[in-house]
């Protein structure tokens, strides 16, 4: 018995159909920043690199200070499970520019898209009911109760923000949650939503906290008011589908120089979900395939059984 050309062709035709269907069905809508979304604006031209934000972040989040081998305080050099916020510097001859790194709180976050049970989720939109959370703020929060530690978030995040506790037997994922725990409901917005310590402590207001929409307007205003000061772009307005933390960089320095990845306007979550959801057609494909296969196999088995019984009686 030879695998006939016809059966191979049939298989190819089926694959083709599925692919064609995949092309024409868009399984996922593009999401934009919500009107209530909060965020931060970091202006590299104002930052003096004092690292007050790094220290304050550790303090309010209960993170240990980094120490060298002899136990002396040492400054952290990168984001880690004990450092959720860091200041780095780009140097090019006499030129230099500081850059702050923390969770970007993406408008359409990759980590949230991949998290198996919504341990990483946008505030108020988790898979579990979190009564204290408010919908629409867009803050990406972490719930260790539903995290299995698969670390897919680390693979997915284009900014390499989520960090894992490698030295712990019972580890968690650590990342900036925009000091959501420091919100004060007695105050007006945005402080009723969150209150990032880095913004509070910054002596030069290089990083400020507010509603994303007003921060975006402020960034545009600064560029227009002093076009020679800036490189003219606002990182996070569209990059990777947009982020809720926005960046301004000095003239002559690109965001790539500052270590920000060059991302397309389509979020990687949107790309990945569109490609992988499409063939499923909202779950119809697997059910239909299963039903068809079970039907064919059952009919064939019945026929085989009949043949076998027939053969036995003849004997």
């Amino acid at each position, binding site marked *: *018995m*030879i*695998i006939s050309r016809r*059966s*191979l062709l049939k298989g190819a035709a089926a694959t083709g159909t599925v692919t064609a269907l995949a092309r024409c069905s868009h399984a996922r809508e593009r999401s934009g920043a919500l009107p209530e979304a909060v965020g931060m604006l970091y202006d590299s031209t104002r930052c003096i690199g004092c690292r007050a934000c790094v220290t304050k972040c550790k303090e309010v989040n209960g993170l240990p200070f980094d120490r060298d081998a002899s136990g002396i305080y040492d400054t952290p050099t990168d*984001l*880690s499970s004990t450092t959720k916020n860091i200041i780095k510097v780009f140097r090019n001859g006499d030129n230099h520019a500081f850059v702050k790194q923390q969770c970007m709180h993406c408008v359409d976050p*990759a980590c949230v*898209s*991949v*998290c*198996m*049970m919504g341990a990483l989720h946008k505030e108020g939109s988790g*898979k579990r009911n979190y009564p204290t959370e408010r919908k629409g703020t867009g803050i990406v929060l972490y719930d*260790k*109760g*539903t*995290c*299995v*530690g*698969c*670390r*897919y978030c*680390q*693979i*997915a995040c*284009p900014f*390499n923000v*989520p960090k*894992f*506790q*490698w*030295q*712990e*037997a*019972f*580890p*968690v*994922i650590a990342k900036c949650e925009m000091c959501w725990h420091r919100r004060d409901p007695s105050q007006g917005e945005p402080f009723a939503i969150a209150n990032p310590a880095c913004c509070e402590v910054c002596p030069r207001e290089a990083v400020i906290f507010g509603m994303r929409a007003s921060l975006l307007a402020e960034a545009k205003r600064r560029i227009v008011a002093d076009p020679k000061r800036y490189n003219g772009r606002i990182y996070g307005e569209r990059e990777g589908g947009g982020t809720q933390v926005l960046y301004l960089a000095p003239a002559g320095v690109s965001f790539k120089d500052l*270590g920000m990845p060059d*991302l397309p306007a389509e979020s*990687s*979550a949107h*790309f*990945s*979900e569109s*490609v*992988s959801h499409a*063939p499923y057609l909202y779950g119809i494909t*697997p059910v239909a*395939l*299963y039903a068809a*296969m*079970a039907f064919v*196999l*059952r009919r*064939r*088995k019945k026929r*085989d059984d009949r043949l*076998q019984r027939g053969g036995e009686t003849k004997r």
Partner: protein
Amino acid sequence: MIGYGEPQAIGGKLLARPMKTLLAIFAVSLGVMWYRFSAGLGPVSNMTDGFTWGIWEPVNVVVFTGIGAGAYGVGLLCYLLNKGRYHGLVRPAVLAGAICYSLGAASIVVALGRYWNSYWLGVPTLWNLSSALLEVAICVLTYVMVLWVEMLPSFLARISASPSARWKTFGKKWGGRLQQAMPYIIALAILLPTMHQSSLGGLLLIAGPKIHPLWHTALLPTLFLISCLSMGFGAVVVLITILKLTWNVEHDQRLLAEMSRVNAYLLIALVVLRIGDITAGKLWYVGWDLISLLFFVELALFLTPALLFLSHRVKRSRGRLFGASLLAVAAGAVYRVDAYLSVYRPAPGWNYWPSIGEMTVTVGMAALGIAVFILISRMFPVLVVEETATGRPRASESAASR
């Protein structure tokens, strides 16, 4: 399903020297696992926040399940395309698949940071259906159970043959019921791998900025699906050849060559798809560098076994077919590890090479797999042994002398 040799238990001593060696290797890896569970992942592995999956996910899950996809491939041929001739290959392929997939699932538990939370996966309201990994997790766990259910007829046959009348009726009764349910189980056993093997490729779609463009494409799910079939067919030929040499298991050269011809077309499809993908706007990524070289090495690795499978000399020779099949498995494995690890660059400055501890766990898991395969084939009717001229199976003799 009439007229084929009946599977039989190989018998023989269970704790022979090879078995002891395999178990010893596994015991060492158990030690590493114990240390991992008490001290955390950092001390035993070279995994970092950049290379967060190390080799456990790319090798223990993605490659092991690729090898285990022989059950899927043979099932497709035998049941869905109704090629009854492949029936003798089903049980060994399903056993190998069940073992590979179980090892993959077990390795994941070792790799998970917060493994004690995994029981939440049983609560569908918590499922984030956007997550390719969730799809893989649920599908693989279900498929592991399906594969072992597919193995149940072997176990029940052994129970039916027991001297106790009670066990005998138990085995016969449930064996019969299982036969009735088989079409539904087999349909599941074909649907689930189709879903999760493509999702293993789909997993990488979201890591677009980190994976080299020659590998990162919307075709990833398709490529992974085809590559699992190719690896699976290759692994079945390798397995049957080894079993022929050790236990004189039935080895039908024409049948295996026929199956490998299908494999040749799959491998050619992989090459065509990948070349088609890069000619559609990615040609300028090809240059004189290691990454491009790796890309062409992969294409050569796909193409070589494909051409070999189509050659008459290879079709006729057991050894040559074995060699070509090994190449096909290697090609799939290299492709998968490359996509997950070799061409994955989280950001400048991150480097990774697996630690001794990580490699020990991978090797230990593989050793356990081989040990379980030997154990089950000795005790239960899985393999069809070739009859010798005297009409008596030779296997039990040779096995007993081991």
